[in-house]
């Protein structure tokens, strides 16, 4: 029983991070048909925002020294700000371009961000101590679960709940969902295109910041490549979930997290290093079975 509980929390906690990542990608894809390859670098940027630029081996913690009730809003604001800035300076000018151009531009942006961080901080991962007391385990129904895992899961569920309420209950939320489904029609009903897109970027940036904080606390390090693995899975989860479907992206994020943990537990020992290969083969199988995504909205099908 405890093993199953441990496993469940592992899966949920890994899945949470993937789900948040997928949500960040899906939000922007929904309103702009843009896959933002810079998302992983937003995550890294937010993590390094905790530090003062230095090429020393030891990290100089700067913003990271703020008390949590200030630190969290500041980092969220930095994430949102970076994201919105990239919209205004770059993506706005590519609104109707072909998908390849938008993808490569977002990749180039990520590339630039990565190398700015590289220049300021070097590629050496530095260790930091962010709320390390959270790694201590708590007793939960007989199992010992790291407190951080619990917080990650609770935070993710709270964020999702808040987002759902926002999207379903507020006028602006309805406008965003409409814009994600049929952008031009929404504009004809008075929805302000720029505002909706900026809001999507802002929320996406905040999600990246949240992921950054969780990762920094979990691993105790700052590494310019931190966001990359999350970004890849998020990208995959968004597509499998069905492009244009936010719930689909979230659910698939959790599913991939669960699959990853499950494979780690159940694969025979010799096959374990190849775990990722199995996950990706499962992804291919998923796509062949349902190419439009598991949860694609009805109107997403292409009509002749």
């Amino acid at each position, binding site marked *: 029983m405890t093993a199953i509980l441990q496993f469940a929390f592992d899966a949920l906690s890994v899945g949470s991070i993937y789900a948040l990542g997928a949500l960040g990608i899906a939000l922007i894809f929904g309103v702009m048909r843009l896959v933002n390859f810079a998302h992983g670098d937003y995550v890294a940027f937010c993590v390094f925002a905790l530090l003062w630029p230095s090429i020393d081996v030891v990290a100089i913690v700067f913003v990271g020294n703020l008390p949590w009730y200030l630190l969290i809003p500041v980092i969220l604001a930095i994430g949102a700000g970076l994201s919105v800035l990239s919209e205004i300076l770059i993506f706005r000018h590519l609104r109707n371009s072909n998908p390849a151009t938008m993808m490569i531009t977002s990749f180039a942006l990520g590339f630039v961000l990565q190398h700015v961080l590289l220049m300021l901080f070097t590629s050496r991962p530095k260790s930091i101590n962010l709320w390390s007391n959270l790694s201590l385990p708590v007793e939960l129904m007989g199992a010992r679960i790291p407190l951080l895992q619990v917080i990650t899961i609770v935070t993710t569920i709270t964020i999702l709940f808040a987002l759902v309420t926002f999207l379903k209950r507020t*006028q602006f939320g309805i*406008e965003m*969902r*409409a814009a994600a*489904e049929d952008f*031009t029609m929404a504009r004809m009903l*008075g*929805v302000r295109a720029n505002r909706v897109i900026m809001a999507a970027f802002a929320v996406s940036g905040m999600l990246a910041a949240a992921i950054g904080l969780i990762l920094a606390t979990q691993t105790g390090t700052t590494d310019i490549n931190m966001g990359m693995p999350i970004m890849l899975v998020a990208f995959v989860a968004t597509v499998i979930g069905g492009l244009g479907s936010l719930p689909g992206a979230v659910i698939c994020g959790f599913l991939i997290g669960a699959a990853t943990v499950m494979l780690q537990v159940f694969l025979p020992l010799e096959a374990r290093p190849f775990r990722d290969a199995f996950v990706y083969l499962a992804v291919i199988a998923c796509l062949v079975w349902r190419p439009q995504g598991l949860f694609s*909205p009805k109107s997403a099908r292409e009509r002749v």
Partner: protein
Amino acid sequence: MLLKVENITTCYGQLTALRNASLSIDEGNTLFVTGPNGAGKSTLLKTIAGVVSPVEGSIMLAGSPVTRKTPEDIARLGFSMVPEGRHVFGSLTIEENLRLGTGMLTDKSGIAEGLAHVYELFPMLAERKHNPAGVLSGGQQQMLVIARALMAEPRLIAIDEPSLGLAPLVIDQVYDALLKLRETRGLTLLIVEQSSTRAILAGGRMILMRSGEIVLEGDAVQLSKGDALQAAYFGYGEH
């Protein structure tokens, strides 16, 4: 004059879809745009709505110039567009679709009343107001998008091919609703309609388009009496 379009030319790349089009509509009147496929009727409406930009010409709505403005700005001036193919937001509920049109209203107190009126006009929408709009039939979707356009309290509604893909009985229902609205609210209507018969039945003015140009205009009933309409539609005597 509520809408004044002057010498609009719109191109898609190398293709000139609309050439030197001019028209005007007074408040409370109805204007039908008819003509064969590819005549440029949809392009005309899209240009007025701001979805595409003309390369030449000007458009004035309620006295303000709206040429090349964004669709959302034009909507705020009292123009509501129902494009071809209905375009309901399938993943939103019926009520959410309706509420979408109200975002730009400055006075939010009338929304509940507006919803009540719309549900009165289209009872089948009221029955399913919390269902996703994607499950509605074609005719119901057409009613929904008209109702949605109404929620914005527009002065002019432009509808592109309201009868497309609908059974004749359903088209009757749609037009009944439209004409009732015209009477009760004094709405100005700009309707693209392939069937000139509908235009004649509904009354009002009519313009006929061919190959991107307006070739004929006049009162719908009078035009139907003479040969001019057929001649212009089929291009007799031109070559």
